């Protein structure tokens, strides 16, 4: 029976995982992710989830265990954040290339000096080239629902790629929200049993991931690139099927808000979307034709969907919660690539770095830059919003 619970984003992830019945769960604690593995440990020790829970000696080992387990053909889950994801970095390149549909939940947290534990996307954005699908959730319900969708997408024989589901540290991971928890039978019928294409099995021996010379490695990488493209229609399809089964639709690669007649628009990601929606409503009530595009997937990247959504806008802004130092925000770079030659002025808006609070006013400030941009005024390519004093 469906139930309604008050869950943090982390607890929602854990409930989603329980409903998907992974067989092996290697894990290692790190703030702000730890609650996920604590909750899963409770599920297992209370007999609510039957899975192998392997406490690893590091995140590098956790991902290595996930690779070993998934290679035998069982559904596998692991989770981390920030420094932990960075420690996994080496191993993240293996599952895409050997087609292991592991689900990794990454709770976004800033990376590097300063010991920041608050939300920023530079941990996951740095892994966008690894070949993992990458989605960002806005609220706890979406976290739970996307865990279920993620396995369905990742294990689809047309895709067979690992999936990284990202949620904002603290703002989402530790905030309690109303969440509808689906029924186990419903999830069982939505998510078929994992049928691996290839697996380690002494009855049908196979070598997986031996050395590949330049004579073949380029084709392998090309196939991976094509495979990621194949995931695009599957993501939309799974969202449709999910809506039919559970009554909630997320829009696939992107979601749009009040874009029909929008003259200026902002692309947002993660929980910031909720705040930006309020800014859009307030500006709309003042008669300003503004709209919002919620970027749900960073990989595969929704180039065509964005082109279609913005074809009538006069100026487009991109919110980035991470920075490629001396470059731009990674989302901006992708969006500008998508719209190359469109003539639409595009600006980058860096904000919320290191977990700095994002206010409705912050997004209104971004829209005021877009107003200037739409009126033909030359504005800076990249603006940092919310800096202290004059920098």
């Amino acid at each position, binding site marked *: 029976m469906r139930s309604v619970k008050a869950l943090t984003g982390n607890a929602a992830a854990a409930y989603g995982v329980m409903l998907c019945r992974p*067989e092996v769960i290697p894990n290692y604690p790190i703030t702000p992710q730890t609650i996920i593995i604590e909750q899963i440990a409770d599920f297992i020790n209370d007999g609510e989830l039957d899975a192998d829970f392997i406490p690893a000696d590091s995140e590098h*080992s*956790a991902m*290595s265990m996930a690779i070993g387990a998934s290679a035998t053909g*069982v559904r596998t889950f692991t989770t981390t954040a920030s420094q932990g994801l960075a420690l996994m970095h080496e191993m993240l390149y293996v599952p895409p290339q050997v087609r292991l549909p592991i689900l990794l939940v990454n709770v976004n947290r800033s990376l590097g000096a300063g010991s920041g534990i608050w939300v920023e996307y530079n941990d996951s954005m740095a892994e966008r080239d690894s070949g993992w699908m990458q989605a960002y959730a806005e609220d706890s319900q979406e976290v739970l629902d996307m865990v279920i969708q993620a396995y369905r997408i990742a294990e689809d024989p047309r895709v067979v790629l690992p999936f990284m589901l990202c949620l904002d540290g603290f703002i989402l991971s530790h905030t309690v929200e109303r969440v509808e928890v689906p029924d186990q039978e419903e999830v069982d019928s939505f998510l078929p049993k994992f049928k691996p294409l290839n697996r*380690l099995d002494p009855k049908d021996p*196979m070598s*997986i991931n031996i050395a590949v010379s330049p004579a073949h490695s380029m084709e392998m990488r090309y196939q991976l690139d094509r495979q990621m493209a194949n995931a695009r229609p599957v993501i939309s399809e799974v969202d449709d099927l999910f809506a039919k089964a559970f009554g909630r639709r997320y829009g696939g690669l992107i979601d749009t808000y009040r874009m029909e007649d929008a003259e200026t628009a902002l692309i947002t990601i993660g929980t910031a979307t909720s705040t930006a929606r309020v800014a859009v409503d307030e500006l709309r009530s003042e008669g300003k034709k503004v709209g919002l595009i919620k970027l749900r997937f960073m990989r595969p990247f929704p180039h065509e969907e964005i082109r279609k959504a913005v074809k009538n806008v006069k100026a487009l802004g991109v919110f980035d919660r991470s920075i490629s130092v001396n470059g731009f925000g990674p989302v901006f770079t992708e969006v500008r690539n998508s719209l190359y030659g469109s003539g639409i002025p595009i600006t980058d808006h860096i904000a919320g770095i290191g977990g700095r609070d994002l206010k409705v006013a912050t997004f209104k400030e971004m829209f005021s830059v877009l107003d200037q941009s739409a009126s033909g005024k030359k504005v800076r390519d990249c603006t940092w919003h919310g800096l202290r004093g004059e920098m």
Partner: protein
Amino acid sequence: MDRKMNIRNMPSQDHLLCGQGACAGCGVAIAVRNIMRILGENTTVYVPASCLLIFGGGMYPHSAFDVPFLYSAFENTGAVISGIKAGYRRQGKDVTVIGIAGDGGTFDIGLQALAGAAERNEDVIYVCVDNEAYMNTGTQRSGSTPFGAWTTTTPVGKKIKGKRGFKKDLMSVVTSQDIAYAATLSIAHMNDFVQKVEKAKNLKGFRFLHVMTPCASGWKSDPSATFDLANMAVETGMWSLYEVVDGEVSITYRPKEMRPVTEYLKLQGRFKHMSKEDVDTLQSWICKKWNKRYCPTAPPLEGKEDDLAYGGDGCEGV
């Protein structure tokens, strides 16, 4: 009662097949071929970055293993085999899962994942094939490289000649945790070798096999000297053969008398630069190890290191 396994009655079916690309005289190939014969076809092999990955795992589309094989990185053998075993266990498949790593992949970069697997007492076999340097990348020193040895990162310079530190006592590290079984093996003592592999195969829990595997290319030795080197390592005390079951250590082969280390050193180019002083330092280190290994009840050593005479069994006078 069944006879113990020996080299005559051991299984002869190969699972590291002919055509693999090891160098002539490679100790790793000899060790792994025989281990795989004993473990049999119901086995899955993980190999991290190493010579064995290249010559055994192979280069696509060729592989010398005819059992399931996986590779993923260098430092994670203990972790990946834990994951493979968990995956099989969930499917009710009783498969022998083995990780085979070199000394670099075990003593150095892989030590953390190895210690994790040992602490969890994972039901897997971990084999360290020890050729005492990073041979796959062209002979750089590792935590296993013995005192005085030349490697490309402990070169024989005008001022400093060869490695200054001693070989890490890996078995002590591994057996400091409650694991099912640990043993040292030599390819010059094959009956002992096959019995230890078979014993490991039939136990549950974490099993660790440490094999000394001479390397003609990195040790600058003649490929035909591989057996002699493995043998002389044991006779001089540079290697010793024992097993640890439930924390109890048993010597499985005891040399009649300690041979001077020079008899081992002279077979290899990597030690040919060593001064008499350095040879004496190495000999003193061996004497301490020898006494600790073969006469554990003797009182602590006293007096000058020069007094540690070899030629007897090393226990006299202490």
